[in-house]
C-alpha cells in the first residue's frame, strides 16, 4: 500500500469515527422537559366520610403536598373529625395535582387492586375500619371502607397504601410503602 493511500484511509476513518460516534447528541439543554411530565406523583390524599344514617352529613379530611415529595412541604393537613356512634361510608381519592386538570391516581390503584392494599391503624380513637371493596383475587383493597365510631376521644389514624406486587396476601406486612399519613383524629 502506498503511504498516500493509507493517509487517505486514516483520514477517512477519522471522519467516519466522528460520523458514527455521535450517539444521539441531545443538545436541547436550553429547552428542559417541563415538570408536567408523565412520571407519576401523588400529591393529595382525600378522605370522604358519608354518614350512613344521613347521607347529607358529609365530612372530609385531606393531606396535600402540592409539588410532590421534597421541595415545598404540605399545605393542607386536616384533622379527621367524626361524630360518635355512627357508621361512616368512607372513600379514598388520590390525586396528582402537579398537573392541571388533576390526575386521579386512585383509579390506577383500583385497576391494579391485586397489587395494592390500604391499611388503617387507629391509636386512641374508637373508630374501627372494615374494608368493603375487593380485588380480582377477592382480597380487600380499601379504597372503600366502613368506619364505625363509638365513644368520643382524641387520637390518630394512620392511613397506609402498601404496594405488594405478587406478594399480596391480605395482610399489611409485605411490600413497600406508597402512602403513609398519620391524621389527627377527633371523635366528638
Amino acid at each position, binding site marked *: 500500500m502506498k503511504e498516500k493511500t*493509507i493517509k487517505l484511509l486514516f483520514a477517512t*476513518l*477519522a471522519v467516519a*469515527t466522528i460520523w458514527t460516534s455521535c450517539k*444521539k447528541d441531545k443538545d436541547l439543554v436550553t429547552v428542559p422537559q417541563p415538570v408536567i411530565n408523565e412520571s407519576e406523583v*401523588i400529591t393529595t390524599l382525600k378522605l370522604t366520610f358519608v354518614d350512613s344514617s344521613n347521607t347529607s352529613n358529609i365530612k372530609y379530611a385531606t393531606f396535600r403536598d402540592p409539588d410532590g415529595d421534597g421541595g415545598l412541604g404540605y399545605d393542607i393537613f386536616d384533622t379527621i373529625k367524626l361524630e360518635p356512634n355512627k357508621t361512616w361510608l368512607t372513600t379514598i381519592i388520590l390525586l396528582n395535582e402537579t398537573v392541571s386538570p388533576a390526575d386521579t391516581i386512585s383509579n390506577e*390503584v383500583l385497576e391494579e387492586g391485586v397489587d395494592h392494599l390500604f391499611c388503617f391503624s387507629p391509636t386512641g380513637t374508637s373508630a374501627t375500619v372494615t374494608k368493603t371493596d375487593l380485588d380480582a383475587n377477592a382480597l380487600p383493597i380499601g379504597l372503600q371502607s366502613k368506619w364505625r365510631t363509638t365513644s368520643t376521644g382524641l387520637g390518630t389514624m394512620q392511613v397506609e397504601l402498601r*404496594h405488594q406486587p405478587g406478594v399480596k396476601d391480605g395482610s399489611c406486612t409485605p411490600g*413497600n410503602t406508597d402512602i*403513609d399519613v398519620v391524621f389527627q383524629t377527633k371523635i366528638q
Partner: protein
Amino acid sequence: MYKVIAIIFLFLIQANLFAQSDTLCKSMLMGKIIDEHDKSSLEFANIYIVELQKGGVSDSKGFYKIENICDGSYTVKISHVGCTTIETKIIVKGKTNKTFYPEHHAEILKDVEVIAKKPIEQTTQTKNDVSDEKLNQSKGQSLGDALKNIVGVNSLNTGNSISKPIIHGMHSNRILILNNGIRQEGQQWGVEHAPEIDPFIANKLSVIKGANSVRYGSDAIAGVVIVESKPLRDSAGIGGEINLVGMTNGKAGTTSVYLDGNFNRLKAFSWRVQGTLKQNGTVSAPNYILVNTGLKEYNFSYTLGWIKQKYGAEIFYSQFNTTLGIFGASHIGNLTDLQKAFDSPVPLETGAFTYKIGRPYQHIEHELVKFKAYFLTGEIGKLSIIYARQYNLRYEYDKHKPLNNSLEALNRPELQFELTTHTADIIWEHNRIRNVSGSIGISGMTQGNTYEGRTLIPNFRNNNGGIFWIERWKKNKFEIEGGIRYDYKRVQIYKYQYVGNATYELITPVHVFENATGNIGAIYKKDSTLNLSINFGSAWRAPSVNELYSYGLHHGAAALEYGDNTLISERTYNAIFTVHFIPSKKINIEISPYIHYIQDFIYRQPAPSPLLTIHGAFPAFYYKQTDATLKGIDFYSNYKINRSFEFTGKASILRAWNKKENDWLIMMPSDRYETELTYRFKTYKKINSSYLSASFLYVTKQSRVPQNSDFVAPPSSYYLINLHASFSIKIKNQNLEFGVSVFNVSNKSYRDYLDRFRYFTDAMGRNITFRVKVPFNMGFKSKSISNNN
C-alpha cells in the same frame, strides 16, 4: 529511529535463531544508560532481567553491570524516574555490552500518549501504580476494586457491582479520572454512579494523590486516577491477547480480547481493537442470595495511530454499556421501611439464582472519541492538540412500575440523564534547557446535561476554560517542580420551579466561578537507598449542580436532599511528604504522611427532624459548607525474605475533622491494614512466574462519626482472607498465564461502612475466580531489518 527498530528486530530475530547455550553461568551484561535528549548519563536507572529476576542500578556515570548470568536470550526492563519503562529482548553471550536510551524510546517508539503523560511521570507528587500482579488478580472485577490495591485508596460501594474510588477519604467530583489522557466526564456526582470505564482497557492503573488542579483543571482536589492503555504496537506484525475469567459467586463470566497490528511496509500506522463481554447472575452473601444483583456489560474500543518521528496522530474510540440490577430490598418507601429492613436478620426479599435483571435497575452508556495530533517544534519541544467528545447516558428504573397501564407498557426509565461533553486541549512541552523542562497549555470544555422523567438534576450548560504553566528544574540529586493555573467556569441552569397552583416557571440562573491555583514540589534523591519528596498543592472545586440544586427525594438513598445555590467553591491546601527507603535490595519501604486542609468543604448536614411527605417521614439533608482537615498516613513495605518468600505490609489511616461543627466528618474510610505473604517458585522448564500468596485484610470499625447523622451505627470491624495462585507456561515465546484467586476464603459475613447496602445486607460471600490469559503474536519479517542484517 529506524536504527533503533532495526536493532530491536535484530535481537528478536537472533533470539529465535540462537538456541540457549549451556555454557557456565559466568557471563556478564554491562553498558551504559544514556538520556537521548542531552546525551547525559542516567544515574539510578534500574536494569532488570525479567527471566532471572535479577538486576542492577546504573552509577553516577550511567554504567551498569550484571554479573554471573547464563548465556541466552532475555527480556530486559530499563526504568528510570521520568522515563517510561522500556522492555526489550537481548542476547547475552560472554561479556556483553549494551547501551540503552530510555528516553529515546519513550519519545519515538511508544505511542504519543507517553509523551503527553511525561509531566505526570516526572511529578513530585506521590504516584502509585497497581502492580501487574494485582491488576491480573482483579481481572473480572470493577475498576474501583482494582484501585483498592493502592494504599490510601478505598472504594465507595453500592453492592457488588457499583464501586467508586476514594482517595484519602474523598470521592466522586473530588477525584479526576483520566481515561487515555481524557478527563472522564460522567454523572459523577451520584454515590451510586460508578466510573463508566472497562477495566480491561487499562494496561496500567495509577493514582496520583493530592491536589492536582494545575495540569488537569478544577475538581482534582483529592487526586487523579490514571487509566492507561497499552501503547500501540511499534513492530511489524499482528498480536493480541485473550482473557477469560470465571467467578463462582454470581456464576460470572468475562471475556476480553484485543488485537493489534503494524505493517512492515508502513511502519507509521498501528492499530488495535478491543472488546469485553461480561455477565453475572445474582450474587450471594454467606447466608442468603442478594435478589436482583445481575449484571450485563459489553464494551469495545479501537485505536488507530499514525506515528512519525516529527509528527503523529491518534484516534481512540471506546464504548461502555452496562445494565445492572439494584438489590431489590434496598429500594424502600420511607424511614419505617428502612428501619424494618435493617431490623430484619435476612433481607426482606429473597429468591433463587437467576441471570435475569428486574426492577430496580440502571442502564448506562458511555462513549468516548478522542483525536490527538502532535508535532515537534524544532529541537526544543512538541505541540499536542487533543479533542474529545464524551456522551454519557443514564437510565434509572424504579422498583415501582408506573400505575398507569399505558405508561407501564412504555417501560420508560423514571430517571434519565444525558450528558454530552466536548473538550479541547493545546499543550506545548519543551525539552530540557539548562536543566529546566516544562509545559504550557490551554484547555476548554463545554458540557450540556438534559433530563427526562423525575427532576433530580436540572438541565445545565457548563463552559470551562483554563490556562496552565508547569516548569521543572532538575540537577544532580534535586528536582523542583512548580506550576500555576487559572480557570474560568460558567454554569447556566435551566430549571422549572414550582410557583403554586400546578404551575411551574422556567428559571435560568447563572453561576460563575474563577480561580487561580498552584503547586510546588521537590524531590531529593540522597542515593539509591533514600528518596524524599514533598509537595505542596492547592486546588479548587466548584460546587456541583446537585449540591446547588437538589430539591427532592433521592429514592435510592431514602432521603430528601436540599441543595443550596449560594454555595461557593471549595479550596484545598495540602501537603504530602513521601519517604521512600530502600536500605537493601530486599527491603522497600514507603511512608507517606499527608494533610488536606479544605476551606468551604461541601457536605450533607442532616436536619434535626425528619420531614413529612405523603409517603411518610424521610430524613432530610442540607448541603452545607465547613472547613475540614483530612490527615493521615499511607504506609507500604515489602521484604524479600529469601529467593522464595516475600512479605508485604500495607496500612492506611485517616482522620477527618469538621472544624465548624467540631465533630468528625461522616462517610470517611476507617483504618485498613493488610499483610500478604507470597511464595515464588523457581522457573521449571517452561513454567515460570509461578507464585502462591495469602493476604489478610483487617478493617477497623469506624468509630469516628458525628452523632445522629446516620440511620444506623457503623458496622463492626472485620477481617478477610484472600488467596491467589498463578503460573505461566512459555509456548513459542508467549507466556500463557493461569490464575486462581479466592476472595473471602472463610466465607465471612461482614458489612463495610462504605457500602451503601450495609443497611440492608451482608457483603458478598466467598468468590473463587479462574483466569486464563492467552497472548499471541505473529511477527512479520521486516525488509528493512533483513537489509541491515
